[in-house]
């Protein structure tokens, strides 16, 4: 299976859709993590993010319409960072993380999405693709703005936000 060419329209759309889908999956995972560790506020936030990203994915799907896109599982995409830009790193969650921190993760992800599309906009060869990239970049910038606003509703974490007086559990 060859890598998908992001500089052509079908490839570009495949990437754009993958970005959203992976974000949905990642936020769903995070929401579940927070459920399991009883961090309800963060869970709700991540669930909300998953919902929003699902909407974005739907929008892109609508734009794709009936076109067939190149097929490929996520590891075949040549993400700049190895990983889809809008999916925060698995290692960045914490069971005591505050909403502020959760939204910081989101914010960084959205920023990476902006950069991703801006790069294509700058470096692309296909005009239609560049135009779409510009459009998407703009949208992502809007997301960045909104997330930043959203984050402002929450206080930054206290110094010892991750202080847990109790020892970890042991199991098997």
């Amino acid at each position, binding site marked *: 299976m060859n890598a998908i060419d992001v500089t052509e329209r079908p490839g570009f759309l495949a990437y754009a859709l993958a970005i959203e889908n992976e974000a949905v999956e990642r936020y769903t995972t995070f929401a579940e993590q927070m459920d399991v*560790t*009883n961090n309800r506020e963060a869970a709700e936030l991540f669930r909300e993010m998953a919902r929003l990203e699902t909407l974005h994915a739907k929008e892109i799907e609508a734009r794709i319409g009936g076109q067939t896109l190149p097929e490929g599982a996520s590891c075949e995409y040549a993400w700049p960072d190895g990983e889809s830009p809008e999916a925060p790193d698995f290692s960045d969650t914490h*069971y005591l993380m505050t909403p502020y921190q959760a939204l910081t993760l989101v914010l960084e992800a959205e920023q990476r999405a902006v950069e991703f599309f801006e790069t294509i906009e700058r470096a692309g060869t296909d005009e239609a693709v560049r135009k779409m990239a510009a459009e998407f970049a703009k949208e992502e910038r809007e997301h960045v703005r909104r997330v930043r606003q959203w984050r402002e509703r929450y206080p930054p974490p*206290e110094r010892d936000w991750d202080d847990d007086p*109790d020892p970890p*559990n042991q199991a098997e």
Partner: protein
Amino acid sequence: MNDPAISIALVGSGGSGVMTAGSLLLEAAGRAGLYGMMSRSSGPQIRGGEAAALLRISTRPVFCLGNRFDFLVAIDWANAERFAAEIPLDTESTIVGDDDIPDEFSASGATFKEVSFKRLAAQSAGLRPNMIALGLIGSAIGLPPGELEAVAKKLLDHKGKATVEASVSALSIGAATLDGLKTIDIKTESVAELWNISGNEAAGLGAVRGGVRFVAAYPITPATEMLEWLAPALEKIGGTLVQAEDELASVNQLIGASFGGTPSLTATSGPGLALMTESIGLAVASETPVVVVNVMRGGPSTGIPTKSEQSDLNIALYGLHGDAPHLVVAPLSVSDCLFSAQWAVHLAETLQTAAIVLSDQSLAQTRAVIPRPVDVFFGARRAVQTEAWEDYERYATVPGGVSPMALPGLTGCQYTADGLEHNTQGTPSSRVEDHARQLDKRRDKLALHDYGDHWAHIDGNGPMAIITWGSSLAPVEEAVETLAPEGIALRVIAPRLLMPVQPERMAAALEGVETALVVEQSHGGQFFHYIRAFYAPECELHSMARPGPLPIRPADVTHAIREQWRGS
């Protein structure tokens, strides 16, 4: 109140600090001269899971959870309903917390006092909800505020002045919130020196007192804390703890160290014990003393690692291949873990064999405030060959069966210890006389030893008896006490020494008994069958066998007794 004990459950999700609050409450109660205990329960998550600290505070030593809880204090309710079965409430109980009480609890009809610990804590920086809860419940049971402050300070001292101050103010905010809360005062009675200790720690201390200076082990829940206590302790007194690659290695390391003369011990749980049985048999056959503390958890297989059960009795008694007589000792309470471990080491050393100590999760991981256990001293030690002797025979058949062991380094007594059947010199032999002689030796040295009164805890008299063991004794004793005023007199027999069996002593203990109920925490009635197999009591024998994960409560026993003796 009739019951001098108060039961308190603290619940909250990960990070809320319920365990810390519970521990501090227990320690403060101890400082106030009260007895008590705390056990823990939590979800499967390593971090952030829901947790419950289950306490019982009393004017007398207490070793099991009560039938009901007086207070349920929720720092938050996240997933707290999972503990519903563990925290029985009734209309006399009081619930404190946010108002989104799970149905499982509110259905009890308990009185509810709304307190949002999170909101109270949000008032000012550095306040912690768990400290507010601690202040509240400490006051509710009448603990002097000074004691709560003292324990909090001790814990937080290293975090600096601000933290300590915040805690103190959290405690007083909690106390102030008492308003409208039904409180219960329990009065200090104890004058004894009190210890705050877990069963695992007590067993560790017992081991050290027994002379153990070498420990090799592989971590496993719920035995790990015993090792965690032993590692630095041994280092301090010139001993060693080795973390081995697995249980096969650890038990064999013990055999090696003990062969060299060092009393040796390991701690494990069911799956680990299963891996050790082959080599425990080697210790038996080669007459090398070793002690294996098995902290039972729910079985079979990986089972329920964090919950207690008495279902490793079978493997401990019978799990070695061949005829391999060995010692099985079972502590009867958190504090008895100390004595039992020490005694087991003493017996293993004196009788040159393997001893299994059957503790369980509920003994091992419960932290209790108890009177300082009395010092026990056992005179006899391992019989060691002290001088070169041309005709030295390691496995000589001597009166009593215990032949002195030469330790490497002693000139002229070189021998090879062997797990193959052997003659008196240790040379492999399949001759019928050698096999018979060594089988008899290994059996008789255990059978002939005088175990004294330590063999069992026996109490009461009359024709009705309860036979029980280990952690089941505490609820049995409470049940018996509860029934006494009703005129139901019960005899209690709880062997501490499970192997070798003591038929004469048991017969004496059962003298005049017409009906007996065998109480244990297993599914298959393992103890019941053991009693039948080895003591074949002539009385009517009934079984109350209940598996984990819930502890046996006094009321369960009371109920079973009433069922049993309904007619009588």
